[in-house]
């Protein structure tokens, strides 16, 4: 018996490896974070998380209140209130489900609720399609949500733990949405290192709602009516909280590396083959896979192409990014989203990148926007090669549209 106890104890402390999807990785993170209240409402591709969470609950591996609400609006309202009462919460949605929760999504940052949500990115209706587009999660980009895009199941799990740590920090108390590309990440199994509970306990302190705890022993009124005498001050507080996120994120990533032995380098964006690159491509999420494959191929042909994958979209590391991009002769931003009528009709990320560069003291390389992979269409290696040609055109000063559609039947 003593030997078995040792074996079990060793197992408790050791990292395991499991073949799981991005959604399952998020569910495992919920278990490791010992989440108290989880709400759900089915919509593909987010619903895979529901399935894994309910399995964990019914197997007795996760002790939480698991509530299937009557719709996304209630789903997000329930966890908002539970979080105000001191519970660590999780929920999520996709596409128009996320939009249906919009009212709850807008009030969550204003009330400084550290909700962690998973967005299984999905095209907005119509037409009803299941594939990935980033417009769903991007709708909350101005509201005080922290937004992060991950590209592997491992990163999904790790980022969920980091998200709890940062969101629940008293200096922050803001919600965080973790975006996982529908299908390519939510439904695709890969080998993931699952940290031990002991490691997670060391990394992630208990959620302490402190002075904002909604409890009979701490009688407060949350969200009273306020007029124009109060709103600006309240918005300014949220501005300050978002301003603090970057430093708290850096602390969390440094601690993550110390405890789990896995490093993400720059927390805000990943750079791939940029050291000697002439031009770079940019994008978010699983787009990284075909882009990296294409880059390896193109480099063999002598094209010095790099890739910058934005991980944290909010807060947006504008200064750091502009500094990094100033090294290259042109930048191609691949948006898996659209922003009809925006400057140059570019996607959301392209215009954010242009904006970051505009006020930068360094070199300002030309930025070409590419719309690709909408509605879950695959972005292929030849697509990336065509994109790269466009970026080289920009680098060499050849005139071309500032926004180009790639992978479109035309």
């Amino acid at each position, binding site marked *: 018996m003593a030997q078995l106890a040792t074996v079990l104890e060793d197992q408790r402390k050791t990292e395991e490896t499991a073949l799981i999807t991005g959604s399952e990785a998020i569910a495992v993170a919920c278990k490791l974070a010992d989440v108290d209240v989880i709400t759900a409402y089915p919509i593909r591709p987010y619903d895979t998380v529901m399935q894994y969470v309910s399995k964990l609950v019914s197997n007795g591996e996760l002790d939480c209140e698991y509530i299937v609400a009557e719709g996304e609006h209630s789903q997000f309202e329930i966890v908002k209130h539970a979080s105000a009462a001191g519970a660590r919460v999780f929920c999520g949605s996709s596409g128009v489900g996320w939009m249906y929760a919009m009212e709850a999504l807008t009030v969550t940052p204003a*009330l400084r609720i550290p909700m962690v949500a998973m967005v299984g990115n999905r095209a907005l209706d119509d037409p009803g399609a299941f594939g990935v587009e980033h417009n769903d999660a991007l709708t909350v980009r101005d509201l005080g949500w922290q937004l992060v895009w991950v590209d592997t199941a491992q990163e999904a799990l790790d980022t969920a733990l980091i998200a709890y740590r940062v969101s629940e920090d008293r200096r922050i108390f803001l919600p965080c949405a973790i975006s996982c590309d529908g299908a390519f990440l939510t439904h695709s199994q890969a080998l993931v290192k699952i940290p031990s509970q002991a490691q997670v306990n060391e990394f992630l302190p208990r959620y302490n709602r402190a002075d904002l705890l909604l409890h009979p022993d701490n009688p407060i*009124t949350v969200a009273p009516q306020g007029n124009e*005498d109060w709103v600006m001050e*309240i918005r*300014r*507080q949220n501005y300050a909280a978002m301003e603090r996120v970057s430093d708290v994120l850096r602390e969390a990533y440094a601690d993550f590396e110390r405890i789990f032995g896995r490093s993400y380098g720059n927390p805000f964006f990943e750079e791939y083959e940029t050291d000697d690159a002439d031009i770079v491509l940019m994008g978010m999420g699983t787009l990284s896979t075909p882009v990296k494959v294409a880059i390896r191929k193109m480099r063999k042909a002598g094209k010095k192409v790099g890739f910058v994958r934005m991980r944290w979209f909010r807060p947006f590391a504008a200064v750091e990014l502009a500094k990094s991009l100033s090294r290259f002769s042109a930048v191609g931003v691949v948006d898996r989203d659209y922003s009809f009528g925006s400057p140059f009709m570019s996607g959301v990320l392209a215009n954010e990148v242009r904006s970051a560069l505009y006020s930068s003291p360094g070199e300002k390389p030309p930025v070409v926007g590419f719309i690709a992979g909408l509605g879950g269409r695959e972005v292929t290696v030849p697509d990336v090669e065509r994109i790269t040609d466009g970026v080289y055109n920009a680098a060499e000063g050849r005139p071309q549209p500032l926004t180009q559609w790639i992978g479109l039947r035309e």
Partner: protein
Amino acid sequence: MGRLFAIEIIYRGIYQKTLASRISRAIVLAAHQEGKPGISFGRYGDSPERNGIPAKNFAIVGTDQETLEQGMAKYEPKEVDITIAVDDTLCKGVESWAWYGLQPVNKLLKPGGTLIVTSRETPEALIKMAHRKETPYQLAIAKGTPSFSGLWVYKDDHTDVRILGAIAKLLPELFSLKSVQKAIVNEWKDPLKAESAARSYERISTTKVLPNQGNPEIPYKFEFPKWHEMGDGIAIPSIPAGRAVEDPVSHATGGFRPDRNPTFKKFTTRTMRPVVNFDTCIKCTLCWLQCPDSCFDVTPEGLYDANMQACCGCGVCEAVCPVKDCVTMVNESEFSDNASQWEDWRKDKDAYKVWLEDKIKTRSERSHGFRYRGQYEEQIPEMLQIAREG
């Protein structure tokens, strides 16, 4: 640079909402007759749908469009030429839902500006009710009851055009009586209303109010915190539950007084207040139970004292009290302070009895509505007499 005129109409929701809007619209239309552009609006933050809550309408007029634009896109002008109070109990001050604390009725008046009040009181009584103002101003009384004109079943008593006629007299730079009459005929197609405006023009007179006249109380003030001084998460501490009440004579403690919102006193929210006969109270609890604002403090001996910090003057207590004349609603103009009736009674029961009988001997006709069916019809002869004789 031309001249910018601002006029505010202070009224009580909801019964006077239409009346106030008609007055401010008519001001703009009359000014338009003289080529002066203007705008009319209700203060956005007000809650005029609430019974009795003070609220405001504004008419802003410029001698030209450029001047007018300096008075636009504001919730409330910083100063006005004329303040109109269509309910005389508003002279005690204005506590709207749009801000915090009490605004003296004459606060926005420019030096030498005019306060027009519809009232049957004397100038002396109204001057006493209003807070003192550093600069002199004029008081003009348009004789009449608090009008509900324009609201559903109530008859038009011409309060709107009588105010317009008075403005033409008091501020002739804004518009003439002729312009007022043209606007009235255009808007209402009623020559009789135009005649009412003319009568009011002839009858209106003013009394000068000096800085040493009026209620000397310093109204409650509120300091706004800076953004970093405020707690975050839009969470505010609750108001504590409350405590026992101390008897001013025996110093015994008992009963219960709930703590109340320190920033919203409701001292001027009501037009009437309950006067309680503690000698006949049978402690049935009904007033305390039914009061929608929890305004009754429970005294150590188990009596119920209406606290004027919380009373909105709705009259439910009077309606539910089973004892004759134990709770009587009395018009606010009868009172000069917000003191505890129970404390006065405890200190001198005989004096209190005399005071109480004096207060309730003539019943006020109305609260924010009428007290019984048919009361409106009873008032019509008096209203007609006012119209004929001024």
